[in-house]
């Protein structure tokens, strides 16, 4: 039961700033995901929390006390990596019991706590297996058990599921989630997979280029992303610039009404956005509010749904429709943007190709 506080944490490597002025409070028992593309500084942050890396400036606090001066082995923040999971020369029991052995716990207690922990990760009776006799998923579970058995203050997972196949990832997510809430342990994990972050974490902290962009519960990133870049990272590249007056945004494609009570306040130039799955196709545009014209560029059948790529003004939009959606490439359509789903974002300072991050 430990809460973690990161205060203006920064780390430089030479002239390179890996993490810039990061502040975040993590409550006791919370599961937080650091999300971001590789090289965004998320692993660097994790290493500063464990003590494997010293912050250039700023502070790391556990329960209100600075731990920056406490070496890794006495800090109680246990790290689980994605590769090189298990000690290759030891069997499963020795791996899981490693931390206890280092702490000088006596043998009989080690063996009972190891068996208990192996039951918890659903691998009972595998004590004598060697690391190389286990599958990837089993190794991952053993690594998890090895970390949990020492009752760490904070559990840190660095892309723990990256090396597993898709099905196994889902099972492991559920396992990590259930064990974490059962033990009530504070946990931080790092991932580049927004889906994984959303499914696993209580709160997501999105990092881009060493800067914490937005923190919040997973749905916040879908409903109300702060910037265009955050929206893009969550696979929403639908943007339309306009000028706002009260609840009306005047765009080159017509007026759009927004929910003033929901969207951020402030008149003037704005960028409106709406998620691909919230857009409806309208039969025709005449006399309806919040309907804008578009041109179908391509139709991609995705099995459970159909993805339309459209030309809206001079930008590219994506719309997600039902699987049986009939649409013809090259035809004009009208898009209805329901007021309750429209959101206003800040234009990110770095201009980017709209299509870049909108993967399927």
């Amino acid at each position, binding site marked *: 039961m430990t809460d973690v506080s990161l205060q203006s944490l920064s780390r430089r490597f030479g002239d390179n700033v890996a993490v810039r002025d990061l502040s975040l409070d993590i409550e006791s028992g919370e599961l937080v995901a650091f999300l971001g593309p590789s090289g965004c500084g998320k692993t660097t942050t994790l290493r500063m929390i*464990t*003590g*494997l890396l010293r912050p250039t400036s700023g502070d790391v606090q556990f329960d209100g006390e600075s731990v920056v001066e406490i070496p*890794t*082995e*006495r*800090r*109680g*923040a*246990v*790290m*689980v*990596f994605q*590769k*090189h999971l298990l*000690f*290759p*020369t030891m069997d499963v029991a020795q791996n899981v019991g*490693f*931390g206890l052995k*280092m*702490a000088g716990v006596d043998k009989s207690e080690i063996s009972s706590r190891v068996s208990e922990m192996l039951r918890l990760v*659903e*691998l009972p*009776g*595998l004590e004598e297996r060697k690391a*190389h*006799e*286990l*599958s990837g*998923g*089993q190794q991952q579970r053993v*690594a998890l058990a*090895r*970390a949990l058995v*020492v009752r760490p203050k904070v559990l*840190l997972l660095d892309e723990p599921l990256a090396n597993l196949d*898709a*099905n*196994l*990832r*889902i*099972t492991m997510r*559920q396992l990590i989630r259930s064990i974490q809430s059962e033990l009530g342990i504070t946990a931080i994990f790092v991932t580049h997979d927004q*889906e994984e972050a959303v499914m696993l974490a209580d709160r997501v902290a999105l990092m881009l280029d060493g800067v914490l962009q937005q923190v919040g519960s997973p749905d916040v990133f879908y409903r109300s992303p702060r910037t265009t870049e955050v929206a893009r990272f969550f696979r929403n590249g639908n943007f339309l610039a306009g000028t706002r007056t009260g609840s009306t945004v005047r765009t080159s494609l017509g007026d759009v009404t927004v929910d003033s009570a929901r969207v951020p306040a402030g008149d003037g130039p704005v960028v409106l956005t709406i998620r691909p799955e919230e857009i409806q196709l309208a039969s025709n545009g005449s006399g309806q509010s919040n309907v804008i014209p578009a041109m179908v560029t391509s139709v991609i059948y*995705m099995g*459970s749904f159909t993805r339309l790529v459209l030309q809206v003004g001079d930008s590219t939009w994506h719309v997600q429709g039902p699987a049986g959606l009939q649409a013809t490439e090259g035809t004009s359509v009208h898009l209805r943007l329901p007021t309750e789903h429209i959101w206003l974002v800040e234009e990110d300072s770095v201009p980017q190709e709209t299509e870049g991050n909108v993967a399927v």
Partner: protein
Amino acid sequence: MTALDTRPPDAETQPEVFEDVTDPPSLIGRWTRRVAITSIVVFVGLPIFTLLIWSFAFRWNFPDLLPSEWGNRAWAYVASDSSRTFEGLWNSTKLAVLVTIMAIVVGLPASRALGQHDFRGKSTVEWLLMMPIIVPTLVATMGIHQIFIRMRLTETLFGVALVHLIPAIPYFVLVMASVFANYGTALEETAQSLGANKIQVFRYVTLPAISSGLLVASMFTFLISWGQYVTTLLIGGGTFVTLPLVLFPFLSGASHSNAAAISLVFVAPAIIVLILTSRQLGRDSSAMGGFGKL
């Protein structure tokens, strides 16, 4: 979107036993093996067999296929004090062990730094490390000789060991750097975060992981020292007698039988070391030795 998980949720929890990867070797693998074994027999076994015959030959003239007279005169000579074989054997052993220990002490931290860290001037260090292989050792030793005379290190075990380190260190560090590079730092960091202090990390995690590589590197170092002639002669000044120094005079003529017998004493440790470590070399983890799977 990810496909729905259609497997029962506990499918993964079933203990799975993965078969050991000792499948019967493929046809190509089998032939490679045969060629390798044949080569070893032809290039290593036969010369030693010839030496064995020579060492027991009393008279062996052309064109006889085998010696016309046999005898153990050569072995009697080897065993005698005047041959200085035992003195050489003892000195060579002491020296090779000392050089190996010194190589480990100096080379282990160095190879770790080279294998796992990036630092300013790393390529220069790597280049300097190669110098003893590029520049003939004789050239370097001539210069060192002057300095050692002043430092009174000539004709001493320690002085000779220091000089043997020059050709040995590059090989030791090259092997160990690749071991450390393969091995990475994640396991040590995991251990550290689990509460192991530096000494515990080294003892329980690092050492077991690098042990087979270390064995190979130490074996190299031992054999490099074992085979030194010129450096020993120069720095040892002829008073520090190792086995090669005992052996070399015989190669130029006097008695083939004596040379053969001493040669056998000379190659014995190499073969013993090779046999002792071949198990280590053949193991799956020999990739840790920087050699891949043999």
